């Protein structure tokens, strides 16, 4: 949920002849559309060129907001405990890390008891199927489509 703290930050990197880089930043309202942000950023860069010898190398747009409310995490929450969800399309592999693992979702029987997600549980399987739907729309850190198949609990979801 958006709060009063929601903002859109733009950081622009300048580079000199020796390759040194320094940043300048702008802050916009969160409600500004991406197209508007690009328009104002381009104007800003155009004006900067008149007063700076540096070259523009890259820019980063960051949207930030905080969840409203004072709710606190469950007493068992441990952010040092992760779930590692491995994905594969048969040739490429990737991994999604989820902090604060719920240990009660792990297998309780067999060789991997206490290690793997229990994909045999209907509730866990439903979560994984839902995640698999979303991975079709996200990309790897390199910008490639995500591998398509979850490898969890010895199952391909």
């Amino acid at each position: 949920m958006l709060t009063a703290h929601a903002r859109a930050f733009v950081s622009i990197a300048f580079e000199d002849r020796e390759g040194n880089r320094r940043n300048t930043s702008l802050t916009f309202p969160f409600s500004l559309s991406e197209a508007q942000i690009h328009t104002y950023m381009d104007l800003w860069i155009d004006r900067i060129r008149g007063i700076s010898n540096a070259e523009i190398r890259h820019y980063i747009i960051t949207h930030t907001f905080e969840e409203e409310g004072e709710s606190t995490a469950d007493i068992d929450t441990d952010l040092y405990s992760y779930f590692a969800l491995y994905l594969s399309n048969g040739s490429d592999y990737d991994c999604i890390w989820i902090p604060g693992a719920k240990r009660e979702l792990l297998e309780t029987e067999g060789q991997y008891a206490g290690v793997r997600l229990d994909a045999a549980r209907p509730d866990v399987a439903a979560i994984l199927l839902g995640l698999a739907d979303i991975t079709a729309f996200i990309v790897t850190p390199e910008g490639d489509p995500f591998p398509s198949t979850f490898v969890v609990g010895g199952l391909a979801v």
Partner: protein
Amino acid sequence: MRAQLYIPRDVPLTLIRSELVEIDVESIPFLLGALRTKELRSHWTSNEDAKRGRQMLAKEGAQMLLGAADRIVEAIDRLYRLTDSIHNGTVYAVDGEGTDLDPYVYYPPMPLVPATESGAEPSVKFSLEKALRLQDNLVNATTYDDAPDDRNVRQQLADLIAAIEGQTNLDPQILAALEDVREALA
């Protein structure tokens, strides 16, 4: 330190492209966490190396959760059941569909040590034991469930010879034939 990822075209190909290592299941979470630290871009000398390194580490991590040796162990178990059926006559059955949700369950379970009791019929062990019993019965008149005749074949032959020798008033042709039999058995 930053890693340079050598890809297969840079190094000679080996016949065997993988190796079997023993990893305690309990240590897998910690190994996966260690692999994660090596996924960072800063560990690699180029974006391409970082991408291939991340994929390689993710592949190995995923395989740690798939029980890589299960198929090998299962193949060895199938060979044991085959040998056990041939030699001991053990009859195995299986339930399930071979999936994680409905895995194969074999019964009876394989014994920790080879069975010492007699083999069940049909089996190599049963047939061999039965042949030995029949031979013992024929030669020594030892009786068994499947060889109940307590007559000793050698004694039977001796009795037959003695009976032939005692004959004096039979037809000469029959007597001559019996004499030939006696000489053949003597």
